């Protein structure tokens, strides 16, 4: 490339800045865990109450060798992915139905808003009684938390499709189904992806809350169990593992977003 000296300097500065930011991000993690470790080693923090990175590493290795870690991780992951898929699928379908039937939408709108405002954890005991203390209760909990907001946000996206484009479809005498598949759905893709991003987080919340309630298996169970026997190493280790899993899942959605946006020519 034939760049001017000035431009090369600019590019260098830009790269330098980017590297600095990445290094800074890593440093935050190192400082956080380093301080934690140092303070517990010096006795400023009681590692019985706060645990410590080194004790967590030992616990992680122990949980891994006994197979407990993978077992509980697997269960939580499966529950989260399943509820995410269900919430997205059912939510989209419901949004499409409500878009299609205007009267039904108008009737149900206030109810959806109220349901959304309700703290779903309040329904915990009811869920346990109705569907039993098992995996299904956890899925139902996660669905309750994520489904309503999925419907509301997706529908909002459907209804905000550009008026001019709707008129274009009207002048072409497009059927309602054609308007849905050729205009509403593709135009809503950026919005749907935004909904998915929120959904990932909500499904984690729902799953862990469900596991607290049901208390049989999973990372949520592990945290509650560790708390009950006052083993903070288990609690902290399970929390960090949870953190990593949630981050991985979020970035998978972000990667999917980049791919889809490129295919459909939407700006990210």
């Amino acid at each position: 490339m034939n760049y001017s000296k000035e431009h090369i300097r600019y590019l260098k500065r830009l790269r330098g800045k980017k590297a600095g930011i990445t290094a800074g991000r890593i440093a935050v993690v190192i400082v956080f865990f380093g301080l934690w470790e140092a303070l517990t080693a010096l006795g400023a923090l009681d590692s019985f109450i706060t645990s410590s990175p080194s004790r967590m590493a030992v616990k992680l290795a122990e949980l891994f060798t006994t197979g407990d870690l993978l077992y509980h991780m697997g269960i939580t992951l499966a529950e989260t992915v399943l509820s995410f898929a269900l919430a997205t699928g059912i939510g989209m379908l419901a949004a499409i139905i409500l878009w299609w039937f205007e009267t039904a939408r108008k009737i149900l709108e206030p109810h959806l808003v109220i349901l959304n405002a309700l703290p779903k954890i309040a329904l915990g005991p009811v869920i346990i009684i109705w569907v039993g203390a098992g995996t299904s209760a956890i899925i139902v909990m996660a669905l309750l938390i994520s489904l309503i907001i999925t419907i509301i946000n997706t529908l909002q996206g459907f209804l905000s499709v550009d008026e001019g484009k709707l008129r274009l479809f009207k002048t072409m005498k497009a059927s309602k189904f054609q308007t849905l598949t050729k205009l509403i759905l593709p135009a809503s893709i950026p919005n749907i992806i935004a909904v998915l991003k929120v959904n990932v987080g909500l499904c984690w919340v729902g799953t862990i809350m469900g596991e607290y309630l049901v208390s049989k298996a999973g990372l949520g169970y592990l945290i509650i169990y560790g708390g009950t026997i006052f083993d903070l190493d288990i609690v902290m280790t399970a929390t960090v593992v949870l953190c990593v899993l949630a981050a991985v899942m979020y970035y998978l959605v972000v990667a999917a977003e980049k791919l889809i946006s490129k295919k459909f020519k939407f700006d990210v």
Partner: protein
Amino acid sequence: MEDLITFDKVCLTYHTKESETPVLSDITFSVGKGELVGLVGPSGCGKTTILSLISGIIKPTSGVVLTGGLPPEKCDISGYMLQKDELLPWRTNMGNILLGAEIKKLDRQKTREKAQALLKKYDLAGVEKHYPSQLSGGMRQRVALIRTLVLAPQIILLDEPFSALDFQTRLQVVGDVYNMLREEGMTAVFVTHDINEAISMCNRVAVLSSKPCRIKKMVDISEFNGIPPSERRLKSRFLELYDEILTTMQNDTE
């Protein structure tokens, strides 16, 4: 001359919770085959409503609208060109042009061939695989017109199709669209609030009143038939016609 569009004592009233608004009152006019008729009037006077009636999206409260001798909702012979190009960003230009054909379930291959020919004819060859975002405003508007033309409508309805373009592009696209309409032998109704544009493109211009809309005057400019827009603007009669239309628009007492 055979009339392709006829309005006979057409009235239309919009109902809202607050009030009942008469939009059109006693509109009677006709458009012959191959004619280009302009509708000018104050904004919000109901110009677009007249196009909606011709395309059959809405029905009149009273009176009769006929296109090709039939009620518009029974015969699909009009194509619509909107204010903005409304090209779908996720479709290629060809995908956009074929949208109407897909919706009307026409033969895809035939439509594609026709679209290729039109693109080539109007200097757009090679853009079919590109996306609308890669085109200039003027090119986008021409792609939008091809999207309309490819459905072979007998009537084209233009709803201020140039108002979203900057001045220079606008002059050029007015010329382009005029040529395209003339070459395809289209009958067109052209809504605008720009008197210059109306005189540079049309055979006749209907001057409309503010709401409830009626035709104040039908100004005949057939003397300019066959003269392209850029040359019309240089004629001395142009200013006289401009003045005649403007005075009619401003005169509220008649």
